[in-house]
């Protein structure tokens, strides 16, 4: 198992490199000159050169990339063009909100998706199944941010059960933290719940027809036990795969849902950075997001190995 993790960690390196080259060269294509944005129209020629010099923009592309890469490896992602904030600090400061949202939605979608999928898969064709399948189809068509608006106007504005906006860090108050991310996580988790429910349903239907399920029944194990122990573990295998795909969807979705609930996460950071053409910030955000995605995918791979012994390296 350790060797598998090591291998996967190593495999991440080239992918990260490619991502960095891509974002770096894309951002080099930016049409407007960031220096103009910084000093405004009335800057003198010397000022202009000075800023260029300070930002290292007078260097050739490759030198800039190599320089950036070397520093990135030591964990230094540079400073923002616009305020002397360290990119790393800015991103890390915003990360907890976005991650709380994302993982909250992962939890919700696993719970909802599993429950609905198992209920539907146990009796294909029953009204439970038809309701769940119908719900999943609708769920996948609802934009997460719209669902967020609806949730906010019902549960926050009208009923006042949850705060409509803002994020409370976990370290400040766990209870308030939970309240502040409940609605956004629900909004975000809807479509993934639907995707998981569909997967679990079809996996469950397939697994329940397997010989080993019949053999377990023949051994006199109760239906409950057969479903919850023997069938579910096998039906979980595809769920893990879905989850590893969905993580990018969820992280991306979080950027948007954050806007509905006025949560200062990576989303608003990225939008501001794009508006200001803040190159180091954009690069840093992309790189860290990709890192998060890869770590999550590594985790799902390990999980996959745990529930599916055939996938384990021998």
């Amino acid at each position, binding site marked *: 198992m350790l060797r598998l993790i090591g291998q996967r960690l190593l495999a991440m390196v080239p992918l990260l490199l490619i991502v960095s080259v891509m974002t770096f060269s894309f951002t080099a294509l930016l049409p407007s000159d960031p220096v103009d944005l910084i000093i405004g129209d009335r800057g003198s020629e010397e000022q202009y050169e000075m800023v260029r010099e300070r930002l290292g923009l007078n260097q050739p592309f490759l030198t800039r990339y190599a320089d950036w890469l070397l520093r990135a490896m030591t964990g230094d992602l540079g400073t923002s063009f616009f305020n002397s904030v360290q990119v790393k600090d800015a991103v890390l400061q915003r990360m907890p909100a976005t991650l709380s949202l994302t993982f909250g939605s992962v939890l919700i979608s696993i719970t909802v998706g599993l429950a609905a999928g198992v209920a539907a898969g146990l009796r294909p064709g029953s009204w439970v199944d038809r309701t769940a399948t119908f719900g999943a189809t609708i769920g996948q*068509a609802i934009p997460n941010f719209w669902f967020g608006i*609806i949730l906010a106007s019902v549960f926050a504005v009208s009923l006042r059960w949850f705060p409509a906006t803002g994020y409370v860090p976990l370290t400040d108050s766990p209870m308030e933290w939970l309240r502040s991310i409940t609605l956004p996580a629900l909004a975000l988790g809807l479509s993934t719940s639907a995707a998981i429910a569909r997967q679990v349903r079809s996996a469950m239907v397939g697994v329940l027809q397997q010989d080993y399920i019949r053999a377990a029944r023949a051994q006199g194990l109760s239906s409950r036990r057969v479903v919850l122990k*023997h069938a579910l573990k096998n039906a979980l295998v595809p769920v893990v795969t879905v989850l590893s795909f969905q993580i*990018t969807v969820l992280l991306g979705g979080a950027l948007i849902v954050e806007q509905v609930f006025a949560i200062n996460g990576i*989303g608003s950071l990225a939008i501001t950075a794009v508006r200001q053409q803040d190159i180091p910030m954009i690069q840093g955000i992309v790189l860290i*997001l990709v890192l998060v995605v890869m770590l999550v995918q590594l985790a799902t791979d390990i999980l996959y190995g745990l529930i599916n012994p055939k996938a384990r390296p021998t």
Partner: protein
Amino acid sequence: MLLTLLFCALFAEWVTPYDPLQQDLINALQGPSVEHWLGTDDLGRDVLSRLIFGSRIAVIAPAEATGLAVLIGVPIGLFIGFRGGWWDWVVMRVVEAVVSIPGIMVAIVIIAILGTGLHRAMFALGILYSTAFLRLARSVVLTEREEVYVKSARVIGAGPTRILLRHIFLNIAPPLIVQVTLTVGAVLLAEAGLSFIGIGVQPPQASWGTMLNSAASFMELSPFLAVPPGIAIVATVLAVNLLGDVLRDSIGRGVRVPSTGAPAQRMLAVPRKATTPMAPHPDDALRVEGLEIMVSPKGEAEVPVVTDMSFRIAKGETLGLVGESGSGKTVTGLGLMGLIGTGVRITNGRVMLENTNLLGLDRRDLEKARGNDVAMVFQDPTTSLNPTYTVGNQIAEVLRIKQGLSHRAARDRTIELIDRVGIPRPAQQADAYPHELSGGMAQRIAIARALSCTPKLLIADEPTTALDVTVQQEILDLFRDLQDEFGMAMLFVTHDLAVAADICDRIAVMYCGEIVETAPVDALFADPRHPYTAGLLSAMPHGQSGKPPLPVIRGSVPAPGHWPTGCRFAARCPYAIDACAKPVQMTGTDRLERCTRADELSLEPAK
């Protein structure tokens, strides 16, 4: 739904009651009214009009982005699929990298370069979704190339490249269409998202996303504002997705072999007089009386698969249930345990295990009886063990649940059992997963599990059929040894008379859902009384000669629902006479047969 959308988009100017941009600040944020059906927004603009104009974007946006994605993705995918090698490697790594970045983030970065606005945003989404088309095109090329080159090795003529091109264009269309509908749905959602965060369509232009953006800011004042554009998006995406589902299904159906037409006339079971009930005998471990099992195939009338099934097995005895596939022997075995699936039901009969009728038990008592009193070994050991648990765990689980053993005791007993079924290094093998064992070893484990609670009856359903010939004999020997030790009765279901002869004391021959002959093994082989038995015996490959088994019984087994009302074997029987058209009862005392001419015929014994 989609047509309405298209109509609105094309004729927006004529349909809308108001100019979508006309402001009327006095009447801002109104609820629905007669003048403004869906109310007004923060600047007093008519929501319905804006919604209709927004539909224009809902058509243009996905069309642009999807079109671009196809135009970029498919050619590159085809190219790298053909070219392979280095090109393929580099492009695929780039695709992997793009896919690992959250899609919205990719779009945001591209928009950062190009600037905001509808068309630029759609360009960004086009690039983003082109990866899906690229992969699709590439995989079609790769699969088709494999197939075409294999075939063209035999067919000389047109160059393989030309054939390949034709194949690719034929095969790429269906998945492409499905992928297009998926992409259109995804673009709709993404466009709304981007416009919502203010980097897609720019105000004051009306798009569903920007409408939601202003709705979100005025959530407290006018919650209704969010409803119309949201419903519009959901309904549109739903319509597109459903269209995709329908397309996928119809394409899928084109591939599948259509089921052959429904059988014209089906013969229902004519109620027959059941064989006279057997007198209970103190030695009986199992007594089955008049078992009848019906199956209802999807959308068709119920048909019998097993009728008038009666037999007994004494303690410590092995009865072979022999028949061709489709004779109902497996469903009989499952029926005894109440393990028949949906659409199958037992309509008659009793299954007396010592003094309890298994068919009369409620669910909980039946669950209790399974495993403890009667257990089963299945045909394919590699599929009858759960792939996600160790084999030791699966045996120990039964011991814990059924016998109430502690974890420790269950583990110890498990290792004893694994040792008993002849597996070397039992403690180590207990921690193996089923896929790590050979078929023979896995079957030994399945046997150990079945016997873990020392049942009175063991049902073995073709337990050696899936195994290697050399292993078969070992497993048969194991069954014999274990029967001596545990003393259980066995019902041995098999299609193989030779196997049955090896292990059974008596044999019941099944044909079309009923037993046609029951006799001790030696008597059955030396003096078959039923023409079907004689046919089976002569079809056996005999001795070392290895000659093809001749003669074979002509014709084939009729499917359930197509059985004749008289002797079910009549159509294939060389001795059939007019009298055989009437239902035939079991006759005889120590051995039983179901043939009107049983007494007069003298049939060929086994060689």
